[in-house]
């Protein structure tokens, strides 16, 4: 609590952790590379430097606000220092902006422009290193890294995975996995969270755009696309649609214009997941086996559990994820129905980089066949829309295709943490009255806390539930579960903090306001939905009676070798 003087204006502060936050609150946007409110303060880029009344220069991100402080944020000296820092960064940087994946969204590029850096007086003599494209999910181009450490801290502090770290020191320092291994040889879970914080093009999404244009152009190919819950509240970002607004209809229109043949909603897959997973929970509760049941819809989490807690793997639900259930249904449909003899290519549009790896997992195959052929992230689909010259914001929303274009509100909320649990609970309580829905939403499953707990009475049994997001939080919970310190019946895990709305494939930047807007957007989709419960989705019922009959297990569950 107190007041400080920023550029001769008096500014009040309350519980801001650092001077930078106070400055930003006062409406001045100081440039930063290494500060993220959810990460530890690193203080390395020195862009946030300010000056006090005695001319002392210090980094505002790492100074505690004190009453009576007098600071200046934009003196000629500071301008000079910031420019020079950018100049020095650019000097050791591959500056191929025009062909860079982050062209236009790059913070380095933006700040160089914003601060008017118009020359680089030093030669780039940094040895170039090969780009690592080995991962299905992300691409690492160290030549573009400015060593801000954001990815390192994200992977370690938020995700608890710790794949990327600094190696060597001084001007030889680099960010890399242990022993400079390629990403494919690490336990990277593919969540792409590192990419969401990277201020440059050093970590980008593995691109799958070109084969899709190719398939669209093929006359004998039917390109079917499914759109994940969290995509609709983010895809409008780059087109000036207000943050968090549901752009599903506009996206459908754009995809049609681009030549996609059939457009469906992954939420439908999510409805199937709710059906299967709630059945599985009931069964395990009855048998008292392999409890807690862990959700399986987040591939980042699944891989984390497999690599870090192999002993707990049996707790993971055998249900395929919504994308995979839907993929299996689409491929089965393509097998059963003629579709004019066309070859079917299934594309999913996901907020998620880990989903790009999920489609290649053999246990997700049915009779050796892969279901989803390509995963496009929201960011890639945005690019494709731009490539096609379409302005999404001006399009009239269009409906999705049938028969898989209807989904429940319960499915929509899969896009945020707690959503899966809430959907399963709705199914188990099986009551779509306003009051019942509200009761469930008040159990504690909603909200952005890293770990949420709820106790629900189902029949004559109390069911203990934990909902975690962020893998570091998941890790902590797993340790406690393993040590017997805590007990749960059902555990939902989303690898990304706040769930898929902040997934590794989402359009950047994902600041606190964007996150909030997207969460609200998701719940709005639910509240606007006609159908609230997955089991009330008529197409779900139809499907169980038709295409899926007798094949539920085969198509909707994973098959490991043991089975």
């Amino acid at each position: 609590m107190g007041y400080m003087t920023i550029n001769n204006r008096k500014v009040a502060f309350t519980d801001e952790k650092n001077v930078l936050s106070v400055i930003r609150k006062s409406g001045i946007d100081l440039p930063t590379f290494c500060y993220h409110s959810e990460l530890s303060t690193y203080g390395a880029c020195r862009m946030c430097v300010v000056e006090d009344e005695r001319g002392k220069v210090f980094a505002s991100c790492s100074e505690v606000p004190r009453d009576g402080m007098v600071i200046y944020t934009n003196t000629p000296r500071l301008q000079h220092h910031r420019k020079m820092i950018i100049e020095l960064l650019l000097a050791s940087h591959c500056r191929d902006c025009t062909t860079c994946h982050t062209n236009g969204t790059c913070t380095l590029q933006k700040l160089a422009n914003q601060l008017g850096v118009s020359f680089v007086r030093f030669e780039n003599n940094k040895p170039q290193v090969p780009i690592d494209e080995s991962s299905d999910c992300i691409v690492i181009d160290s030549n573009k890294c400015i060593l801000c450490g954001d990815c390192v801290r994200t992977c370690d502090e938020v995700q608890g995975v710790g794949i990327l770290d600094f190696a060597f020191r001084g001007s030889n320092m680099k960010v890399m996995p242990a022993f400079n291994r390629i990403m494919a040889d690490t336990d990277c879970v593919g969540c792409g969270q590192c990419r969401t914080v990277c201020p440059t093009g050093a970590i980008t999404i593995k691109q799958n755009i070109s084969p899709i244009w190719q398939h669209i152009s093929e006359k004998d190919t039917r390109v079917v696309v499914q759109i994940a819950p969290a995509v609709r509240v983010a895809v409008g970002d780059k087109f000036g649609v207000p943050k968090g607004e549901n752009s599903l209809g506009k996206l459908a229109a754009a995809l049609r214009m681009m030549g996609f043949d059939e457009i469906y909603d992954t939420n439908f897959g999510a409805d199937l997941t709710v059906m299967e997973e709630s059945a599985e929970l009931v069964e395990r509760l009855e048998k008292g086996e392999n409890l807690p049941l862990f959700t399986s819809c987040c591939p980042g989490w699944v891989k984390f559990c497999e690599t870090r807690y192999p002993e707990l793997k049996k707790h993971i639900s055998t249900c395929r994820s919504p994308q995979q259930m839907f993929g299996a249904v689409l491929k089965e449909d393509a097998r059963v129905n003629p579709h004019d003899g066309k070859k079917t290519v299934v594309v999913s549009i996901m907020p998620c980089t880990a989903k790009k790896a999920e489609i290649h997992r053999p246990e997700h195959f049915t009779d050796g066949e892969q279901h989803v052929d390509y995963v496009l992230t929201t960011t890639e689909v945005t690019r494709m829309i731009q490539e096609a010259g379409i302005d999404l914001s001006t399009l009239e929303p269009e409906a999705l295709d049938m028969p898989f274009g209807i989904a429940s509100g319960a499915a929509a909320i899969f896009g945020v943490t707690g959503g899966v649990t809430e959907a399963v609970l709705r199914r188990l309580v099986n009551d779509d009255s306003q009051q019942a829905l509200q009761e469930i939403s008040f159990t504690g499953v909603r909200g952005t806390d890293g770990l949420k707990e709820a106790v629900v009475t189902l029949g004559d049994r109390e069911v203990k539930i934990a909902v975690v997001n962020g893998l570091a939080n998941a890790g902590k919970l797993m340790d406690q579960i393993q040590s017997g310190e805590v007990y749960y019946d059902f555990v939902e895990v989303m690898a990304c903090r706040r769930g898929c709305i902040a997934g590794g494939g989402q359009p950047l930047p994902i600041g606190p306001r964007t996150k909030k807007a997207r969460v609200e957007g998701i719940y709005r989709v639910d509240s606007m939905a006609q159908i609230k419960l997955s089991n009330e989705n008529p197409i779900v019922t139809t499907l169980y009676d038709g295409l899926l009959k007798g094949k539920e297990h085969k198509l909707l569950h994973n098959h490991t070798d043991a089975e």
Partner: protein
Amino acid sequence: MLDQAYYDKAQEIIEQHGVAQASLIPIIQDIQTEYRYLPPELLSFVAKQLGINEAKAYSVATFYENFSFEPKGKYIIKVCDGTACHVRRSTPILERLYSELGLSKNKATTDDMLFTLETVSCLGACGLAPVLTVNDKVYPSMTPDAATELIQELRGGEA
């Protein structure tokens, strides 16, 4: 994969220091003393035993100059290039050793694994500058010619 004996030794060292991240550096120092280098496999092993991410262990090991993933020569020669030694002309000594041993800034160990040549900044024997050490034994007031002689002597001891 290294011989099991390596892992046993590493385990023994780990037990001496205790399972904690704070033991990481002392443990790998002892391993390096034992084998004259830090076998990468053992770094991974130690990381696992201590419950530290491998990338973190690698990042620590590469930060400090003393750790080497490559086996070092039988004689580790460290030429001091600290201030006192530098102003008393340590550079020609280093250059002489480079040419004498066929080594360079980027190649520190001779192919016969006899010599490893490194520089250090100050051995704390500045009064005797310029100095070098061979396996921690200090050689004071060196000259390029004395360095040549020293190498011949060491080589002679091998024949």
